[in-house]
């Protein structure tokens, strides 16, 4: 346990080890550590950036989907409106056509009635004349009584 040259020897050994460690041992390990630290930080950064990008893309997709849904419903609505409009138009057309046909028929009927009346009138006047002839046993001058007969017919 004497103090001797070992003291100096240890100091020299210490100095050599420290020098060697400073020069050859510390730098590569320290560099690798820091490099890895940087790489991990970069990786984390990239990951968070990617997540953000994904979120953005998702948002955009959602937006597009909503838009297209809206558009589809718009188109559907338009089509519905259009179809109901067409039905309405057809109905209108059908009604007016019907009315027209009914009106035509009515006019024809009126005409027919008029003609029948006319015919009836003529026959009545004729009947009246022949009736009167029979009553009077004489021929009635049709020409002479034409005016009277017409008047009678018009009254019928």
């Amino acid at each position, binding site marked *: *346990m*004497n*103090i*001797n*040259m*070992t*003291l*100096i*020897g*240890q*100091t020299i*050994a*210490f*100095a050599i*080890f*420290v020098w*060697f*460690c*400073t020069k*050859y*041992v*510390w*730098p*590569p*390990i*320290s*560099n*690798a*550590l820091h*490099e*890895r630290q940087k*790489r991990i930080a970069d990786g984390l950064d990239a990951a968070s950036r990617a997540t953000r990008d994904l979120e953005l893309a998702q948002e955009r997709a959602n937006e597009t989907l909503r838009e297209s849904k809206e558009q589809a419903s718009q188109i559907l609505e338009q089509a519905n409106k259009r179809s109901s409009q067409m039905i309405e138009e057809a109905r209108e057309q059908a009604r007016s056509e019907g009315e027209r046909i009914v009106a035509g028929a009515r006019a024809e009927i009126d005409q027919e009635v008029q003609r029948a009346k006319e015919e009836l009138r003529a026959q009545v006047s004729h009947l009246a004349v022949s009736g009167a002839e029979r009553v009077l046993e004489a021929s009635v001058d049709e020409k002479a009584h034409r005016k009277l007969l017409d008047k009678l017919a018009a009254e019928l």
Partner: protein
Amino acid sequence: MAGNNPSPTEYIQHHLQNLTFGYHPEHGWSMAHSALEAREMGFWALHLDTMGWSIAMGALFIWLFRKAGRMATTGVPSGLQNAVEMVVEFIENLVRSAFHGRNPIIAPLALTLFVWILLMNTLKIIPVDYFPELFIRLGVDYMKIVPTTDPNATLGMALGVFCLIIYYSIKVKGAGGFAKELSLTPFNHWALIPFNLVLEIIGLLVKPLGLGLRLFGNMFAGEVIFILIALLPFWAIWLLDVPWAIFHILVVTLQAFIFTVLSIVYLSAAHEHH
């Protein structure tokens, strides 16, 4: 136990004797064959076991860490690299929190001190009889394998730290600044310069002395206890030896840590202006 049943005192003395090579006044340059001869050699002697084991541990440290450093990748680390990086990171954080200044030497210095001392201290876990016995069979009288139980080793490292303290004090503050710091603190008055000087120089010298003696004291005391435990009957040794060894895992790490932290703190103080 060594030899032909020595007395406990002889046994303890034998285990605490370093393998010494030096200049003996009578025998010239030779190996010391007894504690007395070693003492007679005075300063001109070298503890071969202390030097050998400490250099071996230092070389082991350098080899391990150099190997890890050479295969260090920035990718996923594994095995040795993981362990080495853990230590390096631990030291880096330690230096960052304790050292205020910029000096690229401090972190490697702290790493060297910590791992080297840790490895040297760890030799203590090896049963006390193994190596002395082995070397006696090989014809070597003494073999004290734990370098940190030799005050020369601990004070040698402390001396290295001390030199750096002086060097950086002068480098950072200039010779004048350093002298001013020594003579004008803590009492800033010209009449008190001698008093300040005595105070500060004692304070300065106590740093390495405390550093070296703290480590030596702890390790030496632990070693003595181990040797005393080894004197018990062989079937009883483990009863005390195991708890003491487990406790020493803590002491070994703690003392290495304390030496490292104090070195960083002293060097940090050397870099600071007052």
